[in-house]
């Protein structure tokens, strides 16, 4: 890869890349350089939402974020939803809610959904169905019809201490 070096902070770890071209997106670096393949390339146009990650706590499209523009930012992918130091195999509550709520079918949209849901859940109050529907409206799912996903996220928001 031609370009300039950059260090990205992903899931709490500083990860250097020797050379990144200006047009290379964060999604490409996550997948091809770091092997973090949780974020998916569904459309490469910012529509489907399968590539959603958080940058500085806010869900964004990694396919529309240029890697060089992401230096010094906190990037979290689905692989980073479980806090570092948690026991092996631990799941974040929202991951558990989706898994147990039959809200995962083919699973291709799931990482993006989880990131958007995770950002919603950082708010304190329990979430309403309509808040979750609005909050997930940038993540297309072609399998589930959304109902079980919305239910799972609402239940995760109610279960929090």
């Amino acid at each position: 890869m031609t370009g300039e070096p950059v260090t990205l902070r992903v899931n709490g770890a500083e990860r250097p890349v020797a050379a990144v071209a200006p047009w290379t997106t964060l999604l490409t670096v996550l997948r091809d350089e770091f092997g973090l393949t949780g974020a998916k390339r569904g459309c490469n146009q910012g529509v489907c939402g399968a590539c959603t990650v958080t940058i500085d706590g806010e869900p964004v499209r990694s396919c529309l974020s240029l890697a060089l523009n992401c230096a010094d930012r906190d990037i979290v992918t689905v692989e980073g939803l479980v806090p570092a130091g948690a026991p092996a195999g631990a799941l974040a509550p929202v991951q558990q809610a989706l898994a147990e709520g039959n809200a995962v079918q083919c699973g291709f949209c799931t990482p993006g959904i989880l990131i958007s849901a995770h950002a919603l859940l950082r708010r304190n109050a329990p979430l309403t169905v309509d808040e979750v529907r609005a909050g997930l409206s940038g993540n297309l799912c072609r399998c589930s019809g959304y109902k079980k996903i919305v239910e799972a996220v609402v239940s995760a928001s109610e279960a929090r201490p």
Partner: protein
Amino acid sequence: MEFVRPDSIEATVAALQADGAACLAGGATLVAMMNADLVAPHRLVSLRDVAALREAARQPDGTVVVGAMRRHRETAEETDLRDGQLVLSEAAAQIANPPVRNMGTIGGSCAFADPAADYPPALLAADARFSLIGAEGRRTVPAGDFFLDWYETALEPGELIESVVLPPAPARTVGSYTKLARVAGDFAIASVALVLGMDGRACIHLAVAVGACGPAPVRRRDVEADLIGGGLGDTEIRRLTDALAEAFDPVDDVRASADYRRRVAPRMVRQALVEAQQRISETP
């Protein structure tokens, strides 16, 4: 392709003077077009570190200056906007979806000037101005003169949108933005932005702009001016919608036919004006 990340407006303007330079704002449009091989700028000038572009501020007279790098989510939640200025936050809240609203910026969206985008009609209805800065200095362009043609604006090469300036809206005006789209977050089939003020039954402020019905948002100030001071019943609304429809030049595209746009936009304007009057009458 080269990538630069200046940290001041001056340095940004300097970086933009190169041939084939393009501003990278939120990336929501530019990177999508790069991914599709539609554009390949020679130099990407990232605006992320230019702090001055990210602010929004309300001045004592009620003018609100929105920095070009304000993201849609911030504009949707902007507490400095009041009365009729809220047309802008209503529009911002309806752009795309949450992750895209966390990325996309008002400057980026306006510079791209998609004819079906949400800001152009809202800014036109709010009588907003663009503050542009280039090698020659600053200039101000009213929104009505900024959006020129399909994807074309008054921005000159090497020029940057610094901010969007919303003048104070008269007290007790309401702003509203109504959008018809195939699904949530899609670009508009047609949209209506309006700012309305009523004194009893008399219309004291009227600005209606229609989006996605031509290369630029459509507004008929001449007819609006005629309607000021009078009532705003069926006949008056009809005068305005007829005049607007005359100025439409919509496309046939995958979202809808031009014919439908011509027919539905006046109905949406009527409905929006009726609802806005109701809102005013219900506000103590």
